[in-house]
Each structure stands twice: as structure tokens, then as C-alpha cells.
């Protein structure tokens, strides 16, 4: 047991920082990142940034070499995620393809699907979004209603998705639809090109980052057989795998910490950091970020050793939500003016991203349910 980084990991981190420093524009925070990584300006920038990352082999370094990666381990993955999130995630939704869409295609896809999709993801050429939630299927994802009717050569899909992050600029959508049944049986995973006729995407204005949420309408959308991932009607297993990849690895404790640092800097400039209450609030927020970091590392430790995902994943998510809210409560409780137009980009970005922290990627209440069962062995039966 030890908690340090070896020389290779340290050099890797330094290399990443140097690339980020070289590439990000000077007005990154004030003109791009202040509105979170789903802002169209950031997404457009990410396509350019992706080319540099691809040249450096840094879009999917944790993938197998056979699929455009470098066989880096889970620790290398969390290092790159930390450095990117410390900079406000200039990769935007590239991480979706790299962190979960690509990995599940590797695990469940046909050779043709791997050939078609993995290279573009590794090259940073495509962005993915997640067509999961529906108006009547949020936490209870298995109750989704979007239908896929089998026809000659493929499927006709009708339905709608909601809350879809990054949908407006995504090239591909990992779409869930059912061919039969209710509940977990009958769910299929489709790899849907978002420019397919019949797909309409509309942003939903909200209090979190712009373009964080969309409605996606699917009207008589034809998807060929070759875009079905895995076996028809047996997609729920794939969903479980995907969600376990998605839940942890987004190193937002790094971003929350930077936002707290920035808020402290601003308060000190104003002569307002010199009191115990403010110092304690900042320190408590920092401590919560560190707890989230350590629990995330515990999950990465499992991944690096090939241990199946455990309840640690849920505890890490819970801790990250707590850290996010400690950060934004500190900022809004002491520096509300920096959250108004023209204020501070970093603080504003954390504020917008963290607002949805307890809801996206599996609501806090679901994480608590799962932690109670997986970590403590508590069940509703009894």
C-alpha cells in the first residue's frame, strides 16, 4: 500500500500539462470554458484540440494498442482525466467516446463495428452523446419506451430522449430503444449517426451549463442491422458495463479544487479571506475534494487490477457530489458577484457544472441505494 506516483506517471502528468499550456488560448476561461465543456464554442475548440491529442496518442491512451491506444493502465487514465479537468475539460465530450462508448464497442461489438468506430474515436474525429433518459424514464432507465421495430435490413425507431448532454454537436448517439417487452428485457443498444433522417435535437435552456440538456426526437428513424450493438433485446448488460465506466474516471474533484483555489485567491485580493469562517468553509470544501479523490483512486485501484466494479464506485460518486456542492456553496456563499456575467470564468464553470452533479450519471439517491446494498448488504427485502 502506498499513495505516491512513480517517475513515469509524474513525467506523463508533466507532459500533459505542457501540452495543455501550449494549446489552450489565452482567453480560455473568459471566452470558452466559463460555460462548461458542453458549450458549442468549447465543443468546436475540442475538435481542434483533439488533433493535437491524437498526434500525441492522447485521445485513448488507455485503450489496447490494437485499437489505437497505448495499453496505458487505469492510473494513466485518471492522470489524464485529472489534468484535463483541472483545465476545465478542453476535450469536451471526446471523453464519452474514449471512456465508455469505445470500451463497450470493444467488449460487445462485431469486428466490423470495431473497425468502423474505434479508429475515429481514437483519432479524436468524432463526438458521442448518450441517448438514455426519456421523459418517463430517468433513474428508472429500464422503463424506457422508445421503440425499435424490426424491418428488412434494420430497425425503424420512434420515440424521444431527454436531458441528452452534448447532443447538439455530437456525431454519434449511443441510443437505447426496445424491440419488445418491458423493463430490462427487450432493450437494445444502437450506434446512431445523429445526422440520420428523422433525428431532431433541441436544446433545453436551464440553470446549468448551456447545451447541457437537450430533447432528441426520433421519428421513423431507420437504423441498419449493422448498427445494433450486441444481441437484440439483451442490451441491459451492456448498459450496466457502460454505466460502470461512466460513473468514475471523470476527475471532477480536480476541477472543484481549482475553483476553490480561485475563489480563495479572489477573496484574498479583496481582503476577505482573513476570517476563520471563510477559511474553514474553504478548507472543508477542500477536504471533501480530497475524500472524493481518494475514493476515486480506490476505484481506479480496482480497475487497474482487473477487479470487478464494486460498491466503491457508488461511494466515490457520492463523495464527488458532496465535494461539488461544497465548492459551489463556498463560491455562492462568499462571492456571488463572480457568478454574474463578466465574473470569473473558472468559478462560473464549476458553478454551472456542479449544479447538476447530483442528478447526471446516476442520481445521488440511486447511488445511495446501490451503496447500501453493495457495501453494507442492506436490502429492501427484510
Amino acid at each position, binding site marked *: *500500500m*502506498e*499513495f*505516491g*506516483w512513480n517517475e513515469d*506517471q509524474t513525467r506523463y502528468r508533466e507532459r500533459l500539462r505542457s501540452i495543455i499550456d501550449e494549446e489552450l488560448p489565452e482567453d480560455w476561461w473568459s471566452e470558452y470554458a466559463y460555460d462548461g465543456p458542453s458549450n458549442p464554442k468549447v465543443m468546436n475548440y475540442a475538435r481542434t484540440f483533439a488533433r493535437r491529442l491524437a498526434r500525441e496518442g492522447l485521445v485513448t491512451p488507455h485503450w489496447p494498442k490494437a485499437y489505437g491506444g497505448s495499453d496505458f493502465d487505469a*492510473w494513466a487514465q485518471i492522470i489524464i482525466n485529472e489534468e484535463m479537468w483541472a483545465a476545465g475539460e478542453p476535450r469536451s465530450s471526446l471523453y464519452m467516446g474514449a471512456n465508455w462508448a469505445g470500451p463497450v464497442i470493444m467488449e460487445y461489438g462485431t469486428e466490423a463495428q470495431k473497425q468502423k468506430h474505434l479508429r475515429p474515436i481514437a483519432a479524436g474525429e468524432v463526438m458521442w452523446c448518450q441517448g438514455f433518459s426519456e421523459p418517463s424514464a430517468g433513474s428508472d432507465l429500464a422503463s424506457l419506451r422508445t421503440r425499435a421495430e424490426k424491418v428488412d435490413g434494420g430497425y425503424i425507431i420512434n420515440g424521444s430522449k431527454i436531458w441528452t448532454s452534448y447532443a447538439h454537436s455530437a456525431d454519434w448517439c449511443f441510443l437505447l430503444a426496445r424491440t419488445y417487452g418491458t423493463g430490462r428485457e427487450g432493450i437494445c443498444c444502437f450506434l446512431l449517426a445523429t445526422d440520420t433522417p428523422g433525428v431532431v435535437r433541441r436544446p433545453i435552456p436551464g440553470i446549468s451549463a448551456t447545451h447541457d440538456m437537450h430533447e432528441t426526437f426520433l421519428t421513423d428513424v431507420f437504423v441498419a442491422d449493422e448498427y445494433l450493438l450486441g444481441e437484440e433485446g439483451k442490451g441491459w448488460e451492456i448498459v450496466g458495463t457502460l454505466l460502470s465506466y461512466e460513473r468514475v474516471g471523470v476527475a471532477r474533484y480536480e476541477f472543484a479544487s481549482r475553483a476553490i*483555489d480561485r475563489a*480563495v*485567491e479572489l*477573496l*484574498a*485580493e479583496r*481582503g476577505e*479571506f*482573513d476570517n*476563520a469562517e471563510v*477559511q*474553514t468553509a*474553504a*478548507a*472543508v470544501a*477542500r*477536504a*471533501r475534494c*480530497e*475524500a*472524493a479523490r*481518494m*475514493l476515486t*483512486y*480506490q476505484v*481506479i*485501484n480496482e480497475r487497474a*487490477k482487473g477487479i470487478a466494479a464494486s460498491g*466503491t464506485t*457508488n*461511494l466515490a460518486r*457520492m*463523495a464527488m457530489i*458532496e465535494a461539488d456542492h461544497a465548492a459551489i456553496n463556498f463560491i455562492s456563499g462568499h462571492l456571488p458577484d463572480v457568478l454574474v456575467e463578466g465574473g470569473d470564468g473558472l468559478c462560473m464553470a464549476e458553478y454551472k457544472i456542479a449544479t447538476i452533479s447530483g442528478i447526471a450519471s446516476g442520481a445521488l*439517491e440511486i*447511488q*445511495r*441505494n446501490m*451503496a*447500501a*446494498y453493495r*457495501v*453494507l*448488504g*442492506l*436490502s*429492501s*427485502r*427484510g
Partner: protein
Amino acid sequence: MDFDLNSDQQAFIDVVAEIVSGHADLPTAGGTVARIHSFYNQKLDDAFAEGGFYAAAVTEGLGPLAAGLMIYEAGRSPGAIELALSALLAPLALGNEFERPFAIARERDLARPIRFLPQAKTLIVVGQDAVTAIDLRDRDVQPRTATFAYPYGQLADVPDASTGTRLSAPVAQVEQLWRVGLALEAAGAMKAALDVTVDHVKQRVQFNRTIGSNQAVQHRLAECAMIVEGARWLALRAAWSQDPADASVAALYVQEHVARIAFDTHQFLGALGNTLEHALHFFTYKLRALHSEAGGKHAQARSVATSAWPRAMASG
């Protein structure tokens, strides 16, 4: 980065765990569990001393992390034992000059009840600019009863701290080791409190179902589990790194969450957990004692702020 024990660490903690579990019996009186607020586990103390375990922090192949693992493990036991100072502070900052067990207090708290004072042979006094060690063997220490699950005592004649032996170890180092010790001890007690509570809610039936089958109970205990795991890793990291910033973060995290763990575990144990017969109070009332140790949450927060934001703290 590796969250699993290597073979030496595993062998060490296996032996520690066996010793701790072999000395975990609660004292009895008249054939039943004694109704007491605390008990000093002298047999466990003796077992560690005879085995040379107090030197783990400076033993090749083991080191401060091994000592930390030992403090955490012993923290899960109901009895009190002066381990944190003996296993970390003494070998890393005091050398062999002073006799254990130890007690520790800030200079301004010398006149107040101090944890472990009845057993201690040396009192470590942390002042603003220096740390001194006071020999307690010829001093009049009056035991004080408390609901806290530690023995407390008070000095009948409060000495001037400067009359003690001035230590070469700087204040910052002593405070860092004090913080790591309390974080480890608290993390162990939190784990034990959670474990007995989860066992209880799985068995206790009300309204035709176990109370642990209710979502409200599950959610609160899941939050407690998150705190318990977070506390453990922060404390172990602080033991391994010997970094003052890590020590401050770990101590702040545990002190900030004492109230939550103590409240929820007692709520779920109900009146049973309120009795001296049930073991829960040994853990939660250790936590209550550690809640304000080393200056409490605000002192730790100030230390975190000084490490994390030195320019902001200096600018005033």
C-alpha cells in the same frame, strides 16, 4: 499508487488484528458486561509493548504506514489504549528519551482534563513556539470521570510548560503527527460504530420488517459508509506521506464528520445504544472526545488553509 497491502504489510496487520481481536473482550462485573464509560485496555497495551509494535514506524520494511494501520485497527476496538502517540509521535519525533504512555495537550489546556493523563508517564505540551515534555511520574494526577470513552485526568498542580524538557522536534512536526494519530484513531472508531449499527439494523424488526430494509435508514448509512471510507483513506495517506497538508486534511475531515456518525449510529441503535451495556458508546464517545482534539475543526481548517493557500493566508 496501490491501495492493497504488500506481503510485509499484510503479515504485519494480520498479527496486529489477531492481537487486537484477542484482547477485545469487554470488562465484566458480576458475570455480566461492566457498565462503564471507558476502560484502559492494559492487556492490549502490554501485548503491543512486548511484541515491539510501538517501534513499527521506524522498523525497516514497515514504517509510518504500518504504524498507521495498527492505530486504525486498534481504534476499532472498544477499549482505550494510548497508541497513536506511542506509535507515531514518539518514534518519529521524540526518540527514546521519554517514557510512554504519553498524554498530549496544548499549553493553554494544561489546567483542564487531559486524555490518558492517569496512565501517562510523559505529558507532551505543545506551545506556540516550542514543545516540551513533562515527566508525570512524581506529579499528582487526579482521575476525572467522563462519558467520553477514554480515561481523563487533571493535574493537581499545573506546571509551567517551560519547566519541562524542550524537544528538538518543531511544533509543526508534533502537530502533524498529533493530527495523523487522531485521524487514524477516529477513522477506526467510525468504522466500528458503523459496523455495529449495520449489524443491528439487519436484525432489528419493527412494523414487520427489519429497520435496515427502509430506504431512509439505508441512505443515511450509505452516507456514513462514504464518510468512513473517505476518513480511512485520508488518514492512511497522511500516515504514509508524513505530509503536514495531508495530516491537516485528514484531521479536518474526521472532526467535521464526528457529529454525523455519532448522531446517525445512535439514532439507529435507539435506546439500546444509549446503554453502557451496548458497545456503541465506546466508539461514538471516543469520537466525541476526538471531536475537539488538537484545537478542533477550526484549528485543522486553518492548517489546511495555510498549506493550500499560503499567499492568501499571508496577505491577511
